[in-house]
Protein backbone atom coordinates (compact mmCIF):
# COMPACT_ATOMS: atom_id res chain seq x y z
CA UNK A 1 0.00 0.00 0.00
CA UNK A 2 3.07 2.18 -0.17
CA UNK A 3 1.93 3.93 -3.32
CA UNK A 4 -1.47 4.88 -1.97
CA UNK A 5 -1.74 8.62 -1.56
CA UNK A 6 -1.92 9.83 2.02
CA UNK A 7 -5.07 11.61 1.01
CA UNK A 8 -8.25 9.79 2.00
CA UNK A 9 -10.44 8.08 -0.57
CA UNK A 10 -14.06 8.88 0.14
CA UNK A 11 -17.01 6.98 -1.26
CA UNK A 12 -20.61 7.89 -0.59
CA UNK A 13 -23.79 5.95 -1.31
CA UNK A 14 -27.41 6.87 -0.80
CA UNK A 15 -29.67 4.23 0.69
CA UNK A 16 -33.41 3.81 0.38
CA UNK A 17 -35.51 2.21 3.11
CA UNK A 18 -37.06 -1.16 2.18
CA UNK A 19 -35.05 -1.41 -1.05
CA UNK A 20 -34.17 -5.09 -0.79
CA UNK A 21 -33.26 -5.29 -4.45
CA UNK A 22 -30.24 -3.00 -4.24
CA UNK A 23 -29.45 -4.05 -0.68
CA UNK A 24 -25.80 -4.92 -0.25
CA UNK A 25 -24.61 -3.11 -3.35
CA UNK A 26 -22.85 -0.34 -1.44
CA UNK A 27 -20.98 -2.80 0.80
CA UNK A 28 -20.08 -4.96 -2.17
CA UNK A 29 -18.59 -2.00 -4.01
CA UNK A 30 -16.65 -0.97 -0.91
CA UNK A 31 -15.31 -4.46 -0.48
CA UNK A 32 -14.12 -4.73 -4.09
CA UNK A 33 -12.46 -1.34 -3.81
CA UNK A 34 -10.53 -2.28 -0.66
CA UNK A 35 -9.42 -5.51 -2.25
CA UNK A 36 -8.11 -3.65 -5.28
CA UNK A 37 -6.27 -1.24 -3.03
CA UNK A 38 -4.45 -4.22 -1.55
CA UNK A 39 -5.75 -4.26 2.02
CA UNK A 40 -5.19 -7.49 3.97
CA UNK A 41 -7.97 -10.10 3.61
CA UNK A 42 -8.86 -9.92 7.31
CA UNK A 43 -9.24 -6.15 7.10
CA UNK A 44 -11.38 -6.44 3.96
CA UNK A 45 -13.53 -9.04 5.68
CA UNK A 46 -14.10 -6.92 8.78
CA UNK A 47 -14.97 -3.83 6.73
CA UNK A 48 -17.34 -5.91 4.57
CA UNK A 49 -19.19 -7.20 7.63
CA UNK A 50 -19.44 -3.80 9.30
CA UNK A 51 -20.48 -1.99 6.11
CA UNK A 52 -23.08 -4.64 5.29
CA UNK A 53 -24.71 -4.61 8.72
CA UNK A 54 -24.73 -0.81 8.80
CA UNK A 55 -26.15 -0.61 5.28
CA UNK A 56 -28.84 -3.18 6.03
CA UNK A 57 -29.91 -1.43 9.21
CA UNK A 58 -30.66 1.74 7.26
CA UNK A 59 -32.53 -0.22 4.59
CA UNK A 60 -34.48 -2.31 7.10
CA UNK A 61 -35.20 0.17 9.85
CA UNK A 62 -35.05 3.69 8.36
CA UNK A 63 -36.77 5.70 5.61
CA UNK A 64 -33.60 6.71 3.84
CA UNK A 65 -30.02 7.51 4.55
CA UNK A 66 -26.45 7.41 3.39
CA UNK A 67 -23.35 5.30 3.79
CA UNK A 68 -20.00 7.02 3.63
CA UNK A 69 -16.61 5.42 3.78
CA UNK A 70 -13.29 7.12 4.28
CA UNK A 71 -10.28 5.03 3.36
CA UNK A 72 -6.72 5.77 4.42
CA UNK A 73 -3.87 3.25 4.55
CA UNK A 74 -4.08 3.08 8.34
CA UNK A 75 -7.77 3.10 9.03
CA UNK A 76 -11.17 2.81 7.41
CA UNK A 77 -14.06 4.84 8.72
CA UNK A 78 -17.62 3.74 7.93
CA UNK A 79 -20.50 6.04 8.67
CA UNK A 80 -24.24 5.70 8.15
CA UNK A 81 -26.66 8.52 8.75
CA UNK A 82 -30.36 8.06 8.34
CA UNK A 83 -33.77 9.61 8.64
CA UNK A 84 -36.03 7.20 10.41
CA UNK A 85 -37.60 6.17 13.69
CA UNK A 86 -34.34 6.32 15.65
CA UNK A 87 -33.53 3.99 18.54
CA UNK A 88 -35.24 4.45 21.89
CA UNK A 89 -32.89 2.35 23.98
CA UNK A 90 -29.42 1.93 22.49
CA UNK A 91 -28.23 -0.43 25.18
CA UNK A 92 -31.14 -2.76 24.47
CA UNK A 93 -30.58 -2.49 20.70
CA UNK A 94 -26.97 -3.59 21.21
CA UNK A 95 -28.00 -6.85 22.86
CA UNK A 96 -27.66 -10.02 20.82
CA UNK A 97 -31.06 -11.24 19.73
CA UNK A 98 -32.92 -7.97 20.22
CA UNK A 99 -34.78 -6.98 17.06
CA UNK A 100 -37.86 -5.01 16.10
CA UNK A 101 -37.85 -6.36 12.53
CA UNK A 102 -41.24 -7.31 11.10
CA UNK A 103 -42.23 -10.88 10.22
CA UNK A 104 -41.90 -10.06 6.53
CA UNK A 105 -38.31 -8.97 7.04
CA UNK A 106 -37.53 -11.95 9.25
CA UNK A 107 -38.70 -14.24 6.48
CA UNK A 108 -35.87 -12.82 4.37
CA UNK A 109 -33.38 -13.90 7.01
CA UNK A 110 -32.88 -10.52 8.66
CA UNK A 111 -33.90 -9.69 12.21
CA UNK A 112 -31.65 -12.04 14.18
CA UNK A 113 -30.69 -9.05 16.30
CA UNK A 114 -27.04 -9.66 15.48
CA UNK A 115 -26.19 -6.73 13.20
CA UNK A 116 -25.18 -4.17 15.82
CA UNK A 117 -23.34 -6.76 17.97
CA UNK A 118 -21.48 -7.83 14.81
CA UNK A 119 -20.47 -4.24 14.09
CA UNK A 120 -19.19 -3.75 17.62
CA UNK A 121 -17.31 -7.02 17.52
CA UNK A 122 -15.58 -6.51 14.17
CA UNK A 123 -14.84 -2.78 14.44
CA UNK A 124 -12.01 -1.30 16.50
CA UNK A 125 -14.00 1.81 17.33
CA UNK A 126 -17.74 2.15 17.39
CA UNK A 127 -20.20 4.94 18.06
CA UNK A 128 -23.99 4.96 17.82
CA UNK A 129 -26.15 8.02 18.33
CA UNK A 130 -29.84 8.39 17.77
CA UNK A 131 -32.71 10.79 18.15
CA UNK A 132 -36.10 9.16 18.43
CA UNK A 133 -38.38 10.20 15.57
CA UNK A 134 -35.49 11.75 13.66
CA UNK A 135 -32.73 9.31 12.82
CA UNK A 136 -29.56 7.47 13.64
CA UNK A 137 -25.83 8.02 13.17
CA UNK A 138 -23.42 5.12 13.28
CA UNK A 139 -19.65 5.39 13.02
CA UNK A 140 -17.27 2.48 13.02
CA UNK A 141 -13.53 2.45 12.44
CA UNK A 142 -11.35 -0.45 11.45
CA UNK A 143 -7.61 -0.21 11.89
CA UNK A 144 -5.68 -1.57 8.97
CA UNK A 145 -2.31 -1.98 10.65
Amino acid at each position, binding site marked *: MGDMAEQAIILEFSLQGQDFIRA*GEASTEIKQRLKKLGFRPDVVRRVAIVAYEAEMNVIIHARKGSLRIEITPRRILIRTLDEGPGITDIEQAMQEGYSTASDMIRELGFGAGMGLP*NIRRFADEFKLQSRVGEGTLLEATIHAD
Partner: protein
Amino acid sequence: MKLADLVRELELEVLAGPDLEREVTGGYASDLLSLVMARAKAGQLWITLQGHQNIVAVAVLLELAGVIVAGGIEPDQETRKKAEEEGINLLASSLPVFELAGRLYQLGVRGIDHA
Protein backbone atom coordinates in the same frame (compact mmCIF):
# COMPACT_ATOMS: atom_id res chain seq x y z
CA MET B 1 -12.47 -30.77 -2.61
CA LYS B 2 -13.66 -28.99 -5.73
CA LEU B 3 -17.23 -27.76 -5.89
CA ALA B 4 -17.72 -29.59 -9.19
CA ASP B 5 -17.02 -32.91 -7.41
CA LEU B 6 -19.62 -32.15 -4.74
CA VAL B 7 -22.14 -31.18 -7.40
CA ARG B 8 -21.63 -34.56 -9.02
CA GLU B 9 -21.62 -36.62 -5.80
CA LEU B 10 -24.73 -34.98 -4.36
CA GLU B 11 -26.52 -34.42 -7.67
CA LEU B 12 -26.90 -30.74 -6.96
CA GLU B 13 -28.78 -28.64 -9.45
CA VAL B 14 -26.56 -25.88 -10.85
CA LEU B 15 -28.55 -22.65 -11.09
CA ALA B 16 -25.49 -20.51 -11.64
CA GLY B 17 -22.06 -22.04 -11.99
CA PRO B 18 -19.55 -19.38 -12.94
CA ASP B 19 -16.71 -21.01 -10.99
CA LEU B 20 -17.36 -24.67 -10.25
CA GLU B 21 -13.64 -25.41 -10.10
CA ARG B 22 -13.52 -23.43 -6.84
CA GLU B 23 -12.01 -25.31 -3.90
CA VAL B 24 -14.43 -25.84 -1.00
CA THR B 25 -12.64 -25.39 2.34
CA GLY B 26 -15.60 -26.07 4.64
CA GLY B 27 -19.32 -25.73 5.19
CA TYR B 28 -21.76 -23.58 7.10
CA ALA B 29 -25.55 -23.73 7.51
CA SER B 30 -27.92 -21.01 8.70
CA ASP B 31 -30.86 -18.98 7.46
CA LEU B 32 -30.08 -15.92 9.56
CA LEU B 33 -28.00 -13.60 7.43
CA SER B 34 -26.29 -11.80 10.32
CA LEU B 35 -25.14 -15.11 11.75
CA VAL B 36 -23.73 -16.11 8.40
CA MET B 37 -21.94 -12.76 8.15
CA ALA B 38 -20.31 -13.26 11.52
CA ARG B 39 -19.45 -16.95 11.27
CA ALA B 40 -19.06 -18.19 7.70
CA LYS B 41 -15.56 -18.08 6.25
CA ALA B 42 -14.15 -17.47 2.79
CA GLY B 43 -14.10 -20.67 0.74
CA GLN B 44 -16.95 -22.32 2.64
CA LEU B 45 -20.09 -23.70 1.09
CA TRP B 46 -23.26 -22.22 2.63
CA ILE B 47 -26.45 -24.24 3.02
CA THR B 48 -29.64 -22.24 3.47
CA LEU B 49 -33.39 -22.26 2.94
CA GLN B 50 -33.33 -18.62 1.81
CA GLY B 51 -33.88 -18.31 -1.92
CA HIS B 52 -34.12 -14.56 -2.37
CA GLN B 53 -31.43 -12.40 -3.92
CA ASN B 54 -29.97 -11.03 -0.68
CA ILE B 55 -28.08 -14.31 -0.25
CA VAL B 56 -25.88 -13.37 -3.21
CA ALA B 57 -24.52 -10.21 -1.57
CA VAL B 58 -23.66 -12.22 1.55
CA ALA B 59 -21.80 -14.80 -0.54
CA VAL B 60 -19.91 -12.08 -2.43
CA LEU B 61 -18.94 -10.18 0.71
CA LEU B 62 -17.64 -13.31 2.43
CA GLU B 63 -16.10 -14.84 -0.70
CA LEU B 64 -17.96 -18.09 -0.13
CA ALA B 65 -17.31 -20.99 -2.51
CA GLY B 66 -21.01 -21.21 -3.21
CA VAL B 67 -24.54 -21.38 -1.84
CA ILE B 68 -26.79 -24.44 -1.77
CA VAL B 69 -30.47 -23.66 -1.42
CA ALA B 70 -31.80 -26.80 0.25
CA GLY B 71 -35.14 -28.39 1.00
CA GLY B 72 -36.41 -28.27 -2.56
CA ILE B 73 -36.85 -24.52 -2.35
CA GLU B 74 -36.75 -22.78 -5.70
CA PRO B 75 -34.58 -19.66 -5.62
CA ASP B 76 -36.05 -16.59 -7.31
CA GLN B 77 -35.17 -15.90 -10.92
CA GLU B 78 -33.48 -12.66 -9.78
CA THR B 79 -31.30 -14.65 -7.41
CA ARG B 80 -29.98 -16.80 -10.25
CA LYS B 81 -29.37 -13.80 -12.44
CA LYS B 82 -27.57 -11.92 -9.71
CA ALA B 83 -25.45 -14.96 -8.81
CA GLU B 84 -24.34 -15.27 -12.43
CA GLU B 85 -23.53 -11.56 -12.62
CA GLU B 86 -21.59 -11.53 -9.36
CA GLY B 87 -19.69 -14.75 -10.07
CA ILE B 88 -21.34 -16.75 -7.29
CA ASN B 89 -21.97 -20.48 -7.59
CA LEU B 90 -25.65 -21.08 -6.82
CA LEU B 91 -26.87 -24.64 -6.36
CA ALA B 92 -30.10 -26.28 -5.31
CA SER B 93 -30.97 -29.58 -3.69
CA SER B 94 -34.20 -31.33 -2.81
CA LEU B 95 -32.53 -32.77 0.30
CA PRO B 96 -33.36 -31.22 3.69
CA VAL B 97 -30.61 -29.18 5.37
CA PHE B 98 -29.69 -31.88 7.89
CA GLU B 99 -29.31 -34.58 5.29
CA LEU B 100 -27.34 -32.37 2.96
CA ALA B 101 -24.94 -31.28 5.71
CA GLY B 102 -24.49 -34.91 6.76
CA ARG B 103 -23.62 -36.03 3.27
CA LEU B 104 -21.21 -33.15 2.79
CA TYR B 105 -19.55 -34.10 6.07
CA GLN B 106 -19.22 -37.67 4.88
CA LEU B 107 -17.47 -36.39 1.79
CA GLY B 108 -14.96 -34.59 3.97
CA VAL B 109 -16.41 -31.09 4.20
CA ARG B 110 -16.03 -29.79 7.77
CA GLY B 111 -17.71 -26.97 9.65
CA ILE B 112 -14.88 -26.10 11.99
CA ASP B 113 -11.19 -26.68 11.42
CA HIS B 114 -10.37 -28.58 14.59
CA ALA B 115 -13.35 -30.98 14.45
